[in-house]
């Protein structure tokens, strides 16, 4: 089975930064519809901080590096999504603490802890129209794939599909959390910006594995 080293995670964090910077204006735009237009700014700031941290990290402990990246993110962007990303990376990193090599099983445990962190910190439930609604289905797929010892790329391809479907489903939901919740029924039919961030996370991992 494939192994990921700390250099892979540095590269992935770097790609995540690029993706968030590329999607800066798009995220600003969709967060502007029912939110405060900051998501493009905060995600760029958060992932830049994470990537900078990773670049400077000189040890080989993947878990610790990801935890520290999470701390850096929550300092750099203390918005809802910044804090959730920070929490996710901190918790996910904790699950990988001490590891210098990672396989799909480990990667699933990262995402599982990440997801639990989001649910803990945000207190939103599945169906509340948040990032949870794209990320949670993807993490469920990763569990399956990890149980079945799949390869990374196909596993993430499936997870991405689930995340994309999650985005669609979230679009139809009524927002219960965050600024969009003030729109009540009117929030239905509008894309949830957080769910897009969830999808972008999985997509970036997927793309990375594709090119390996």
């Amino acid at each position, binding site marked *: 089975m494939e192994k990921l080293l700390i250099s892979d995670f540095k590269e992935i964090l770097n790609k995540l930064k690029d993706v968030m910077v590329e999607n800066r204006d798009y995220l*600003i735009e969709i967060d*502007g519809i*029912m939110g*405060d*237009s*900051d998501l493009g*700014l*905060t995600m760029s700031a958060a992932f830049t901080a994470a990537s900078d941290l990773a670049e400077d990290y000189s040890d080989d402990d993947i878990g610790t590096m990801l935890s520290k990246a999470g*701390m850096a993110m*929550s*300092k750099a962007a*203390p*918005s*809802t999504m*910044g*804090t*959730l990303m920070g*929490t996710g990376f901190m918790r996910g990193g904790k699950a990988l603490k001490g590891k210098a090599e990672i396989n799909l099983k480990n990667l699933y445990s990262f995402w599982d802890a990440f997801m639990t962190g989001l649910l803990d*910190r*945000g207190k939103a439930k599945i169906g509340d129209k948040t990032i949870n609604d794209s990320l949670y289905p993807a993490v469920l797929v990763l569990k399956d794939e990890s149980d079945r010892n799949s390869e990374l790329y196909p596993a993430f391809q499936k997870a991405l599909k689930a995340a994309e479907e999650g985005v669609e489903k979230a679009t139809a939901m009524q927002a219960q*959390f*965050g*600024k969009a*919740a*003030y*729109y009540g029924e*009117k929030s239905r039919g509008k894309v949830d910006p957080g769910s897009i961030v969830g999808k972008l996370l999985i997509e970036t991992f997927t793309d990375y594995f594709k090119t390996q």
Partner: protein
Amino acid sequence: MKKFLNKPEQFVDEMLEGIYLAHPDKLKYVNNDLRCLVRADSKKGKVGISTGGGSGHLPLFLGYVGDGMIDGCSVGGVFQSPSADQMFEVTKAIDQGQGVLYIYGNYGGDIMNFDMAAEMADMEDIKVLQVVAGEDVASSPKGEEHKRRGVAGIFFVYKIAGAAADKMLSLEEVKRLADKAAANVRTMGVALSPCIVPEIGKPSFTIEDGQMEIGMGIHGEPGIDKGPLKTADETAQILVDKIVKDLPYEKGDEVAVLVNGLGATPKEELYVLYRKVSEILNKAGISVFHVFVGEIATSMEMAGLSLSLLKLDDELKELLAKPADTPFYKQFQL
């Protein structure tokens, strides 16, 4: 965007530099971070009170740090929560062994960060209790009060909690009183024009010519009714009706009133509105102990106002009446 600023991304830090330069004897920062603001002096052995939230609402939040009010404030970017880390630094700086009360508005980012900060404080054995203020009746219906936005009414919560802490009451007791204030305040606002986040450079929402938005939040969150501009008297009637019915405030009740300007709206207009508010309350048999008129919680240059009522009993009244002296808010004994 017509603003006095240099680089938009420096706006908050330069504002803070200006504040520290203007009030060196009253305010300072800790952890080498301008955004971790605390009182320069402090009363020994007192429960600490800390708040935090996005910039762009002066005098909210940091303006209430001072004598008789609160002790520290973590400062976020414009309309952005400060980080848990910053909140924790402020917590450490203001704790005097009696614990710290967090008072903040009901916004996702703030809640998560204050929760994180409280966890950090717990790890260092600092006792932290939290009060989340959310009183905008337009933001969520009765029965779903926990979803309501915190707006100008948080001023009353600071004032009550601050006076309580000043009386050297325990953390639990300060929290009880702050909770009571938070539970007894209701607010509703109306906006006439948007505001601009410096880093964004243009309004992130619009209100058409000749239109007003009733119930809009202080970051431009949608209201409950967008329609043609109403008269001051009609506006007062709508706000009072909705607020009074919600708690409800009843005949014989005594209240404090806050008529808050959101930024561009002149004081003249706030008083024109209060004229009608006073008349309606008077007719309803609700008596006004004191009215606060001015900019208490703003949205930069947004035009609009909000009305808050705080239902009083003897203990709240005593605390509300105590003097306060911060660089942004001064009150002699009422």
